[in-house]
């Protein structure tokens, strides 16, 4: 079964990218619908198989690592593959109705989307450091292409700023890879993890990788490129970028940290990254509060939410194994629930802007009365984002609180609690604007139901994750067990 699932997972997005490039927007949309069904089924199948039988290494081309490239198909990877399938499908379905097919350049949306999707799958599964680099670049360039699509000046500026940041970040990572290859003579992550105990890696490796990848993940104060890029792109694109793309670089960093953090890490690096993350939570939330445009609020909120991810480093370094596990679980759940909630939020924000015809927060007055459905999706997503129960965001916050308390690092507790309140500050600013009554006439355009249902579905998933969190937590802990299928 796996012998077909894994090639299917890699092949479908790439094949669709090729097909969609050759046709116009409408036919591309048709192809993509088929592709979405295939991808979701394959991702589900893979997830179920790994949940059932445990993970494995897949040797691409039949060449085993370290000579060849292996894919690490473990519980965490397939969980993210499934997450990607869900979020990307939602964004793609939304885009199919949201984007204007009369604009010629929109036909490039589909091939770029499928390359992005392929890159994401590649990164989740990669077991090879250099392969991660190529996957990361595939993601970055596709994402930049998506931001720049349409080629208007503000989008170009955002895209260029994003591209330059991404390039510098990738080089930082590549330098780290060069040092690793020089030290070990291999690029296989599993091989390095085995060797790391006897041959401690140079501390600079982790520092370089951390800096480069933090730039790509938009860790404060390296977040300067994110709000413009995520705020200016079309809503489905923003959803993809905030939900998945920034997570890819974080994922690589987390994998590196968990493989060689023990030897190459230090308390300074761990606490420093955590402190920057904490600063990101505070500054990002405050900036979000100060924005006048709806999508910029959501974009800055990503800066804040990304900050939490970096608590992984202090909470998993030099602490008891159970504490580190709690932290990993909390961070993974936070990543997943933020992906779902933020995608829902961007799509809902897109609908609201479409309905109101104005990107300003202050234009939302009356929305609660006439567009309750879109606002409700936004609200549900916001509940998870604020970490209020019952939601995936709450469970994640709970686990992180437990980890901080167990690690005795009480200073992160303040960040977690304050972060909730700060996020409420910018979220409720939007509700405040939309609850104002304007009069009994409905001045709004009503988006089609198909557009409104998608963010609602994502938001419901973000909430629902709070009830079934145990399941993904069990699966994502599954290590690689078997060999070739």
């Amino acid at each position, binding site marked *: 079964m796996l012998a077909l699932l894994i090639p299917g997972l890699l092949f479908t997005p790439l094949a669709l990218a090729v097909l969609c490039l050759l046709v116009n927007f409408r036919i591309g949309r048709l192809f993509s619908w088929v592709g979405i069904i295939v991808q979701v089924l394959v991702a589900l199948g893979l997830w179920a198989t790994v949940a059932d039988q445990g993970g494995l290494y897949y040797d691409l081309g039949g060449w085993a690592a370290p000579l060849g490239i292996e894919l690490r198909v473990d519980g965490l990877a397939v969980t993210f593959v499934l997450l990607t399938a869900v979020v990307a499908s939602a964004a793609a379905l939304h885009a199919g109705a949201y984007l204007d097919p009369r604009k010629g350049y929109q036909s490039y949306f589909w091939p770029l989307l499928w390359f992005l999707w392929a890159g994401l799958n590649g990164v989740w599964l990669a077991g090879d450091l250099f392969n991660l680099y190529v996957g990361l*670049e595939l993601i970055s*360039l596709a994402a930049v292409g998506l931001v*720049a699509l349409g080629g208007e000046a*503000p989008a170009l500026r955002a895209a260029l700023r994003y*591209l*330059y940041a991404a*390039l510098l970040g990738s080089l930082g990572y*590549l330098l780290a890879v060069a*040092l690793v290859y020089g030290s070990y003579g291999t690029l296989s992550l599993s091989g390095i993890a085995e060797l790391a105990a006897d041959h401690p890696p140079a501390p600079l490796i982790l520092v370089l990788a951390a800096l480069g990848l933090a730039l790509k993940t938009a860790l404060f104060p390296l977040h300067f490129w994110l709000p413009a890029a995520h705020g200016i792109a079309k809503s489905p694109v923003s959803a993809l970028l905030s939900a998945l793309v920034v997570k890819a670089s974080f994922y690589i960093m987390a994998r590196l940290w968990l493989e060689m953090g023990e030897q190459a890490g230090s308390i300074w690096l761990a606490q420093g990254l955590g402190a920057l993350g904490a600063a990101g939570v505070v500054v990002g939330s405050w900036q979000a509060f100060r924005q006048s445009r709806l999508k910029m609020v959501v974009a800055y909120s990503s800066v804040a939410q990304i900050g939490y991810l970096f608590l992984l480093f202090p909470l998993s370094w030099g602490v008891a194994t159970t504490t580190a596990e709690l932290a990993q679980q909390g961070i993974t759940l936070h990543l997943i629930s933020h992906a779902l909630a933020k995608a829902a939020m961007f799509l809902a924000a897109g609908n609201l802007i479409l309905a109101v015809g104005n990107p300003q927060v202050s234009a939302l007055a009356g929305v609660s009365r006439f567009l309750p459905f879109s606002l409700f999706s936004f609200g549900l997503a916001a509940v998870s984002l604020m970490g209020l129960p019952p939601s995936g965001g709450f469970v994640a916050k709970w686990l992180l609180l437990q980890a901080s308390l167990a690690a005795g690092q009480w200073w992160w507790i303040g960040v977690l609690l304050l972060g909730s309140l700060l996020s409420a500050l910018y979220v409720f600013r939007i509700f405040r604007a939309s609850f104002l009554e304007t009069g009994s006439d409905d001045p709004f355009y009503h988006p089609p139901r198909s557009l409104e249902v998608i963010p609602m579905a994502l938001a419901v998933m973000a909430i629902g994750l709070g009830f079934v969190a145990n399941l993904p937590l069990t699966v994502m802990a599954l290590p690689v067990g078997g060999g070739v299928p």
Partner: protein
Amino acid sequence: MTPVQLYVLAGVLLCGLGFAGFLLTSHLLRKLMAFNIMGSGTFLLLVGLAQPNNTPDPVPQALVLTGIVVALAATALALVLMRRWYHLSGRTDLQGGPGD
């Protein structure tokens, strides 16, 4: 000094040079050149560090070839975007211009 040490030294210097250039210049084209210089330094390091006893290792060389193509693709994309930005805004950097 062996040739490999020379590679590594040159790589390190190019990296530092490119890094400083990338951050100090605001002209988009110069920034891009700086990125390419830093990239070349990284590739030199990748090849140099892998062969301490002067016997060539095909793997890093293949990696570098791949890396060059990737860097080339990124450079080309940056150039296209940059030229369009220049024609729309009349600027060679990202400060100011429409929509800032």
